[in-house]
């Protein structure tokens, strides 16, 4: 965990339709609820067509650029194994890669909650309270998906 005055840089990457932007939105909202300065950046456009998608989230005392500079991400959360190689260069030396292999997908009530399960894995390393995560997950998803996603988060957080 970087010093508390430093900006934390997270990149979430995957393929269109996997919930990359949903995951980065939940992370950004959690940091916002913690009272931090937050910026989240993403490239829309043709993401629906199954291409690579990535989104940057930065938070701390004061954040300027909304984009994580290449080679400076503290954490890289990748939702599709095939995208690890493409996304890897954003990670700083010694940065943490969080990939789908870290979650036992068979335990997920809903396979589509992999994005939130990987946020649970990320949450182990961040100084953001669980109740803020839970509130952000609920705010981002329709009520019928709350239980499955809170379960997914818990599986990632406390395997």
């Amino acid at each position: 965990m970087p010093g508390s005055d430093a900006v934390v840089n997270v990149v979430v990457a995957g393929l269109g339709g996997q919930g990359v932007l949903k995951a980065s939105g939940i992370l950004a909202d959690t940091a916002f609820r913690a009272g931090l300065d937050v910026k989240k950046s993403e490239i829309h456009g043709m993401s629906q067509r199954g291409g690579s998608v990535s989104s940057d989230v930065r938070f701390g005392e004061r954040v300027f650029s909304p984009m994580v500079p290449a080679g400076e991400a503290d954490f890289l959360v990748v939702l599709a194994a095939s995208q690890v190689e493409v996304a890897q260069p954003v990670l700083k030396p010694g940065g943490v890669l969080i990939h789908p292999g870290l979650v036992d997908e068979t335990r997920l009530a809903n396979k589509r909650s992999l994005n939130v399960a990987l946020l649970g894995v990320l949450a182990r390393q961040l100084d953001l309270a669980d109740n803020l995560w839970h509130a952000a997950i609920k705010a981002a998803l329709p009520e019928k998906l709350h239980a499955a996603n809170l379960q997914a988060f818990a599986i990632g957080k406390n395997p």
Partner: protein
Amino acid sequence: MPQPNPDRRLASGNEAVAQAALAAGVALGTGYPGTPSTEILEAFDALGGRAQWAPNEKVALEVGIGAAFAGARALVTMKHVGLNVAADPLFTAAYTGVTGGLVVVSADDPGMASSQNEQDNRRFAVAAGVPMLEPSDSQEAYDFTLLAITISERWRIPVLLRMTTRVCHSATLVQTKGQLAPAQPPTFVRDVPGRVMIPAYARPAHHRLRAKLAEIAAWNESEGPTQVVDGERAMGIITSGISFQHVREAAPHARVLKIGLSYPPPVEAMRRFAASVDRCLVVEEGDPYLYEAARTAGIAVEQKPEMYRFGELNVSRVRRIVAADVSPEPALPAGKPPELCPGCPHRNVFEALHDLHCIVAGDIGCYTLGVLPPFSAMDTCVCMGAAIGVGLGLRHTLPPEQARKVVSVIGDSTFVHSGITGLVEMVYNPPATGHVLLILDNGTTAMTGMQEHPGTGRRLNHEPTGRVVFEDLARTLGIKNVLTVDPIADSDAITRVLREALARDELSIIIARRPCLLAAGTIKLREKKSNAGQ
């Protein structure tokens, strides 16, 4: 933990513009979809504002001008290339001026995340003579929208709000504070010399415009949204828009002049700033716009090396600019490119075009992906609507055996946007070999995220309204061969119909109608709703 503040939220630049428009009492928001601007009107609608899609950007701006003539506040949104389409009304609206505030959002796309070029629309502000604000985050997107309305009403002039992809689509904190004096209730006040631009009235109007711009320039020097961030005198940086954020991070010790109203530029502020530092560098994305403004005024500033004109800037690139580093940039691995969805109705059409060895004058939309393997079935793509004109030009001049292979392919939203005039040209100047126009009607504007258009018969908020029926339109214009096929239900039909049409030396229109796979469910629901409501 800090107290929660209900007025403080995380919002994209686009959402912030919509929130400000609502706070300012904007009576009408109109535009045409285009990444990265699309969400502004969708958010304005969701907030309860009156938002509507126009068939194209020119019409949107004209509607906005009419609303502003009536004294109402209006917001018109488009992507950068949309302003090319809307340029005609923009240039003369600068002369006529407005009564209610008129804000024109141009969302530029440096780096071409989803565009066919990366033109820098700051040039348009200069060419048309309209003031231009450049926000650098969502807070400024909010504040500058309000300021744009204030400037627009004070000087009775349209104002350009120039956003860029990273400002539109990045979420940053916004304090939704600040209100404007309420808008005057709309009423018609006749002003013939002010609004009827015959030469006799336009000549004095041009003088009025230049006088307004001189006043705005003076205001910008003394009270404009210019900001100086103190730092060491060794290094001074002049910047604007998103580049400001990158600069603050890449050169934390530099003294920075951040320009908010970049046309007319605050030249004297730039001169004082440049004199206050040892080295003065202009860091801007795209064209050397501020650099040229400074140099024209005789201010000694450095510009970024030419290689940084291409693509968007980021912290790493700004560090390199500051270090005057022109060594080749490390290439990042390419991601997986987008492709037509499995089951997309465009797929069978492009297979047919490929199998028949057609020369395809293409257009812009999801279907542009037909250019990629395995289809490799598109030969040209210039701008929206160009499929028809370019196809006709090819037909007119190619030897007949090649001309007979030319097909113009255009999406439904694109057809309404700027294909209808092309169709008129096809009727008016038919090639000797005839021509085949293929309209891919998937019932939505898929490319930009499933917006309605006049061919769907539903408004921006999905409520039913008048519908343009392509078959009727084509027949009314005198096209005899008008055929409709479902490219999924009968996958051979499209090949058969195309082959027949190509064999005739006549004009044919084939409408391949089948909803976009991703939108089909929602379209069905909306149709049900509108039928139930009728």
